[in-house]
Each structure stands twice: as structure tokens, then as C-alpha cells.
């Protein structure tokens, strides 16, 4: 069957990590695996897309696809679907891809499944609910292609050893009435230290830290460990303590580090889905009944503001010895 992966690509041709995970899975599912990349950098993604299993890359470097939200991409995808009739399209849950998938569903009348954690066939997928306590098997019906948004880190990305994908240029005229929601400015905050998705250790803080200033205790611990990044729960991001880029959970990042240290985070299901696949979990919380302790390899019942500096000192001592 024909399986497509909608791949977001940076200007330099770097492919969004979720697309590589989805391409890896697509190889198991389809006889023909293709990627679709729209926007500057798209054609440069041919080598990576091929390396992870795409035989074909439908690509356009036209900036119309990134200058305007969703509508041009949906228009082009719809044309490609009519021409080539894939059975299944996989998406990452990035903002741009969610916009595209949501609109495409209405355009094609196809089913759209979000938060998939595994795909077993063209019309059979799994998701996990209640913070990953239950696995749900779902059958998909209705017209092709079925649309599935896959949770990050559901599959380990693995190169197939294949050569570059064959680039098929996408030449679709985009009508002016689809050039409405215009991206006029971009603002990026530079983050210090290792990226959250790549850090071996993540120390995440929540409401239990009481005040934004206390995040420095997490930074000090991260500094003592070395290859560590600082993250946060949704509650403190919403409260404006730290930027959104640090948010871990359902609406933030999904991470899977060697060690995850949850500090003053109770463990709401929306947070758990973003971190429960971490190899080892340490939880520090005052409340013995906090759900996070059920997931912890090591749980510490106590006041984080007291315990954290002691842990930092112990690590420094260990490293110094």
C-alpha cells in the first residue's frame, strides 16, 4: 500500500524528527513509502527522507507554503492525493502539521486519528489514554487516505540504508483566496544548555516550587550534573514562570531521557504522557499521595526547596572525588 509521511523541513533541509520516526514506521506498513515536504528546504530533504525509507519525495521549495498558515499546503496535498491515491498519511503533532491535518480532513472527508502511539495496518491503530494507563485499539473507516497524527517518540527512528528519495516536484497553482493567514514576523528565543529533546537528564519543575525564582535550584542541579536540561509542567508555563519551549506533556514536548527528575510536579495525566517513557524517573514532592510517585523509580517525599540543594551538593562532592 502507499503510505505517505508529511514532513516539515527547515530552510536548510533538516527534517523534523517526528517525520523520521514516522518514515521508520511507514517502512513496516507500506510497499511504497513517500514523503511530502512543502516550503523552503524541501528538495534538500531528499537524502534524509531516502535514508529513512522514502522512495519518493514530493517536494516544493515555494515559500507560499510557509508564508501562509495551512491553506496552501492543504490545497497542494489534496491535489497530490487525487493524483496518487495513498492509503494512509502520517503526521507529527507540530502546530503546522496539526493545522494541515485538521483542514485536510474536512477537505477529503477522511477519518483523522490524533495521538496514535502505534499503527498496526492501514485502518488499524492504537492510542493510549488516561496518561498511558490504557491502550485503546481503534479501527479507521471511510475514504482513503486515512489521516493519523502520531505521538512523538512512539517509534525509534532508524535509517534504512537507502539512497536519496526520488524528488517529484510539486507544481500546484495556489489560488490567491488561500493566501490569507499570513506569517509576518518570527520571534525565536535562544535556549541555553542542551535542547530538552536531546538532553540525557531532564529536571522539570512544577507548582511545588512555589515561586519562579526557585527554578534556579533546578538550573544549579542541571549545572552540577552536566548534560542536563530544565523543563516545566504546564501549570507553571501557563502562569508565565518559564517559556513555553520548556513545557513537557500533552500540549508540550514528549521526552524520553535516561533520567527524568520531576520536582514539585503532581503528575497530572497530561504531564505523564509527555515523560513516562523516560528510562528512570525520580520524583520529589511534599504530597505522599501525588500520582507521580506511582511512576517513580525513586520517590522522595519532602520539600524540594530543601532537598534540591542537598542533592546538588552531593553530586558536586561525588564528581570532585
Amino acid at each position: 500500500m502507499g503510505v505517505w509521511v508529511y514532513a516539515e523541513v527547515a530552510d536548510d533541509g533538516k527534517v523534523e524528527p517526528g517525520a523520521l520516526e514516522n518514515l521508520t514506521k511507514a517502512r513496516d506498513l507500506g510497499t511504497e513509502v513517500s514523503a511530502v515536504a512543502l516550503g523552503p528546504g524541501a528538495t534538500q530533504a531528499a537524502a534524509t527522507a531516502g535514508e529513512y525509507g522514502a522512495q519518493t519525495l514530493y517536494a516544493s521549495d515555494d515559500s507560499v507554503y510557509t508564508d501562509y498558515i495551512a491553506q496552501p499546503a492543504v490545497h497542494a496535498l489534496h491535489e497530490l492525493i487525487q493524483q496518487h491515491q495513498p492509503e494512509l498519511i502520517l503526521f507529527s503533532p507540530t502546530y503546522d502539521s496539526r493545522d494541515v491535518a485538521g483542514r485536510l480532513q474536512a477537505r477529503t472527508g477522511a477519518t483523522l486519528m490524533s495521538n496514535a502511539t502505534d499503527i498496526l495496518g492501514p485502518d488499524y491503530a492504537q492510542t493510549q489514554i488516561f496518561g498511558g494507563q490504557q491502550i485503546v485499539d481503534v479501527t479507521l473507516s471511510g475514504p482513503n487516505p486515512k489521516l493519523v497524527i502520531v505521538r512523538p517518540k512512539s517509534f525509534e527512528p532508524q535509517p534504512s540504508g537507502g539512497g536519496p528519495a526520488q524528488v517529484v516536484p510539486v507544481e500546484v497553482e495556489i489560488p490567491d483566496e488561500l493566501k490569507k493567514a499570513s506569517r509576518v514576523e518570527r520571534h525565536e528565543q535562544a535556549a541555553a544548555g542542551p535542547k530538552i529533546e536531546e538532553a540525557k537528564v531532564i529536571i522539570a519543575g512544577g507548582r511545588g516550587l512555589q515561586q519562579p525564582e526557585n527554578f534556579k535550584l533546578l538550573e544549579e542541579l542541571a549545572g552540577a550534573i552536566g548534560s542536563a536540561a530544565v523543563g516545566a509542567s504546564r501549570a507553571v508555563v501557563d502562569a508565565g514562570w518559564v517559556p513555553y519551549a520548556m513545557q513537557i506533556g500533552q500540549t508540550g514536548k514528549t521526552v524520553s531521557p535516561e533520567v527524568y527528575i520531576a520536582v514539585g510536579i503532581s503528575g497530572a495525566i497530561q504531564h505523564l504522557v509527555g515523560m513516562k517513557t523516560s528510562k528512570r524517573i525520580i520524583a520529589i514532592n511534599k504530597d505522599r499521595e501525588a500520582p507521580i510517585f506511582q511512576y517513580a523509580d525513586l520517590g522522595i517525599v519532602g520539600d524540594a526547596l530543601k532537598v534540591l540543594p542537598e542533592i546538588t551538593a552531593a553530586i558536586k562532592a561525588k564528581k570532585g572525588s
Partner: protein
Amino acid sequence: MNIIALVKYVPNPEGTPQMGPDHRLVREGVEGALDPGDEHVVEAALQLAEQSGGEVTVLSMGPEPALAAIRRALSMGAHKGVLITDQALPGADTLVTARVLAAAIKRGEFDLVIGGVESTDGYTGTLPMAVAEFLAIPNATFARHVEVKDGSIRIERQTEMGYDVVECPLPAVVTVTAGANQPRYPTLKGIMQAKQKPMENLTLGDLGISAEEAKATQEVMGVEPVPAKEAGEILEDPGEAPAKVVELLSKAKVI
């Protein structure tokens, strides 16, 4: 300016959701409320209406108890409510829901449709975009800030590493994040007035949608528990914590 606020009634927003034998979330007979994410939707709608002298219509699809969610929005200050309830709708997927909501929106004049980023119970996170496509209007989504000026909107769209500014002519669909505002609490006066505000109840027939068109394209075949993780060690005495943490980090080879 006519603003439509899309809201959802969710069971137990603070508690643990329950699943029935039909593999659907139990929504009836369960204490429910306006989805907490939708309080930000209503707040954003009210602020824009206050600035432009517009009116806010709260629109929801759900069982009869969903009226409670609309009431809450009305008591915050929204002007009227519309609830779509139909026996063909329980189990509806995002395609059906978007089709139904779009049909209800098209019945009147509107300038702006505001929704949440995702619901607290289903969190599919794509519904407002599908509504936008059915209405053939643009979407400016994931807004942490919204302004309306001269017939167009300007939003700050949340991104991985910061935000983008997106401008878009009206009519349009906007979704707002929880960071966009601080929802107001209903006043006693607001709660009293809410009972007098116009409330419309619609069925699929009123929208010209057949039960066949409302058929879901997804079916849950089974639910199984994820194997429980082996219980970890819990230290009631935080004094032991530093040594234990160092031991775990050493074992994980990260220090």
C-alpha cells in the same frame, strides 16, 4: 462584530475520567463542566467583543447536561447560547463534529470563530481547523495573544522556540492557548442574568444533516490496561535522598 465561541462540556475536568462498556467516555450522570481550556476561549471572545462592541454566541455540541457549560459561559458574559443535541451524535468523531458546528455557524452572520487548542478529555487538537475548512475561511491558530483591527486579526502564534506574528482578514477561525488570558469568574449578577439569556436548542434535522452523515469513522475495538510498572522505592525520609539520587545517576551513567 459577531463572535462565535466554540465550547465543550467535559466530564470531570479535575477528576479521573471513566470509560463505559461501549468504550466511550462516560458523559451522562457524571458531574461535568465547561472545559477549563474553553474558559480562555470565552474570555478571549468577551474581551474582543468589549473592544469592538460585538456580541458573543456560545456554541456547543453535546448531550443535554452540556447546557451547564453554555450557562457558565453566559454567566461570564456571553450573550446567547446554542446547543446541538441529537441521539445520532454520541460517539461522533472530529469530522462529524466539525461538519455539525460549521453548519450551525453558517446559519447566521459571523466575523470570528474562537476555539480552544484541544479539549481536556479527547485532546485531538484538530477540530477548529476542520471547522475553518468547512467554512472555507482561514485559520490563525495557537494564539497566545489576539488583537482585532480594521477587519483583520493579528495574533501571536505559539511556536516551538518562540512565536510568530500572523495577520489574517476576517472572517477567520482562531484558537487560543491557556496563556492567552486569565478567565474572569462569573459574578452573582452574571449568574442571575445568564438564566434570562437567549438559548437555542438544535438537532441534526435543524441543520439539514442526516444521521448517515453523522456516522463516526472510528471505532474502538478494545481497551486493555498497560502493564503496571514495577513499584519504585519511596523515601519518606528526605535525608537519605542525596545519596540515593547520586547512586541512581551513577547507575544511569549520567554523572
